[in-house]
C-alpha cells in the first residue's frame, strides 16, 4: 500500500481535479443545478460509480477517512472495490463507521446515523435528470429547468395516483431544492428523502456517464414533491429488524428458504452491527442464541 509512484494522489491528475472542484463549487453555489463537467474515463465501467469516484477523488485529502456503502452495506462488491481503489491510489484511512468518516461515498442509501457538520456525502448518480423519462430532449429539459417549468413532474405523480391510488414512486423521488431546482436524489429510497432536508452534511452528486455534478449545501431546504390531498409519505415497515430489532429504519427483505421463509434486516449494515454490539437483539438473533445454548 505504499507504492504510489505510478499514480498521482487519488488517481486523477491535478488539472482534472481543479476542473471538477470548479464544477463542485458552482454546484454548491446553485443548489440542485446540474453543472456539466468533463467526466474522465475511470478504471471501472460506467454504472459502477464513475461520477461519485471522480467527485471523491477531487475532494479527498491524506487526512480524510473514507467510508463507501452500496445499498447501505459496507461489504458488497461495489463498496469493497471502491474502498480498495482509494486505499491503493490515495493511501487514505478507511472505515465502516459512519460517525468516524469524513467522506462517505454512497450508492443509493443515506446512512441511518445522522450526519454531522464537516462530513461530506458523495452520491453515485446514474441519471441526473429528473425529467428525463417525461421529456427525452436534453435541450428542452434544460429550458424547463431554466424557466422553472415543472408542471410535467406533477403529471407523473398524477398518473401514479390515477393508476395506483397513491404516489407509487418509491425511489429517485423528485425533490425541490432551496425552492428552485427540481432534482433527482439518485435512486435512494424515498425513505431517505427527509434526511436530505436541512442536512448538516454537504451532499455532492456525481454522474460520470452523463457528465453532471450537482450539490445540496448544508442546511438547505429539500422538499419532496406531492399533492395537497396526497402528501409525501415514506415507506413504513411492519416489523423491526430481525437481527438488531431496530425500528424506523430502512429494511431489506431476505429470502431464507424456498418455503416462503424470509426476514427483514437493516439495509445499513454498520448501523445494525453497532446496535448488536450494544446488546440489541432482534427476533431471529434471539432465537439463534437460544438454540446455541
Amino acid at each position, binding site marked *: 500500500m505504499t507504492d504510489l509512484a505510478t499514480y498521482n494522489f487519488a488517481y486523477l491528475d491535478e488539472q482534472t481535479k481543479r476542473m471538477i472542484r470548479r464544477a463542485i463549487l458552482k454546484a454548491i453555489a446553485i443548489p440542485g443545478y446540474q453543472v456539466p463537467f468533463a467526466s474522465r474515463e475511470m478504471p471501472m465501467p460506467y454504472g459502477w460509480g464513475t461520477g461519485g469516484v471522480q467527485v471523491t477523488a477531487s475532494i479527498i485529502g491524506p487526512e480524510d477517512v473514507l467510508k463507501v456503502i452500496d445499498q447501505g452495506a459496507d461489504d458488497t462488491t461495489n463498496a469493497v472495490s471502491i474502498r480498495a481503489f482509494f486505499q491503493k491510489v490515495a493511501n487514505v484511512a478507511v472505515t465502516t463507521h459512519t460517525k468516524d468518516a469524513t467522506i462517505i461515498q454512497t450508492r443509493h442509501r443515506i446512512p441511518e446515523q445522522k450526519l454531522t457538520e464537516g462530513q461530506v456525502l458523495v452520491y453515485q448518480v446514474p441519471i441526473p435528470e429528473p425529467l428525463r423519462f417525461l421529456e427525452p430532449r436534453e435541450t428542452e429539459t434544460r429550458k424547463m429547468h431554466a424557466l422553472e417549468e415543472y408542471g*410535467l413532474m406533477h403529471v407523473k405523480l*398524477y*398518473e401514479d*395516483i390515477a393508476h395506483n391510488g397513491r404516489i407509487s414512486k418509491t425511489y429517485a423521488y423528485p425533490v425541490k431544492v432551496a425552492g428552485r431546482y427540481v432534482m433527482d436524489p439518485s435512486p435512494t429510497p424515498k425513505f431517505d428523502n427527509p434526511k436530505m432536508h436541512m442536512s448538516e452534511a454537504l451532499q455532492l452528486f456525481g454522474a460520470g456517464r452523463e457528465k453532471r455534478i450537482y450539490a445540496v449545501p448544508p442546511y438547505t431546504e429539500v422538499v419532496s414533491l406531492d399533492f395537497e390531498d396526497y402528501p409525501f409519505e415514506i415507506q413504513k415497515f411492519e416489523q423491526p429488524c430481525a437481527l438488531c430489532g431496530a425500528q424506523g429504519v430502512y429494511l431489506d427483505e431476505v429470502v431464507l428458504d424456498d418455503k416462503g421463509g424470509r426476514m427483514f434486516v437493516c439495509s445499513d449494515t454498520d448501523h445494525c452491527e453497532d446496535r448488536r454490539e450494544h446488546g440489541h437483539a432482534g427476533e431471529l438473533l434471539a432465537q439463534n442464541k437460544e438454540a446455541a445454548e
Partner: protein
Amino acid sequence: MTDTPLLKVSGVSKFYGSRIGCKDVSFELWPGEVLAIVGESGSGKTTLLNCLSTRLMPTTGSVEYRMRDGNFRDLYHMSEAERRFLMRTDWGFVHQNPADGLRMTVSAGANVGERLMAVGDRHYGNIRATANDWLTRVEIGTDRIDDQPRAFSGGMRQRLQIARNLVTSPRLVFMDEPTGGLDVSVQARLLDLVRGLVNDLGLSAIVVTHDLAVARLLSHRMMVMKDGHVIEHGLTDRVLDDPREPYTQLLVSSILQV
C-alpha cells in the same frame, strides 16, 4: 365586445431565404372574434399562423397582444419565460395532428390537467374534477379518463386536444386545420362542438383551413391567401357569397356540390 382589439398584427413578413413565406400581413383581431385564414397548400397560411403564435420568428413586422392587464405587449420583445407562460395560460394551440399537441403516453386526465399543474395547481382532487368536467364538455366519456390517447379514435383525440387547450380558459386559440384528417360526420360534430365552445367562452380564434365549409361555419371574418399575400379580406359571408378576386372566385367555385 370591447373597443380595443386583442391582437394587432402589422406588416408581418417571413422570408425563407429569397422565397416568400408570407408578405406584409396586417390585421387586428377583436375579442370574441373568429378569423379564418384560407388558401391552397403552400399559400403561407401555416407560416403566418406560426409567426402569430410565436412559434416562428417573422423577418419583419410586429405582433402585439393585449395582456390581461390591458396593456399591449410586442410578442417578440417579451422574454422567453413570459412567452411560454402566455402560451400555456392565455393561449391555446390546436394542431392538425393531435399527436403533436397531446402527450400520447399519459392518460387523458393528465393531458387535461397538465396546464393546471403547470400554473401551480397542487390538489389532485380538484385537478381530476376539472379534467372530468372538461371531458364531459367535449363529449368524451368520463370512464375514459385514465386511458391513454393512443387508445382513442382520431375524433376523440382532437376533442381531447381541444379540452387540454381550453382548461386554463385562454382568450385566444390558434387552430391549424382542426378538422384535417377526420371523416365528414366526425368533422361535423367537431365543428359543432368548437362553435359551441367558442360562443360559450367568448373565445377569439384564428383558424387556418383549406376547407371553406369550416370557415363558413366557424368564422366571422376571413382572409384569403395566395403565394404569401393576403389577397382578400372581409366578413365570411361576404367573401364566400360575393368573392371579388378572381382567385377567390375560383376557390369558391371549386367547392364540390353533392
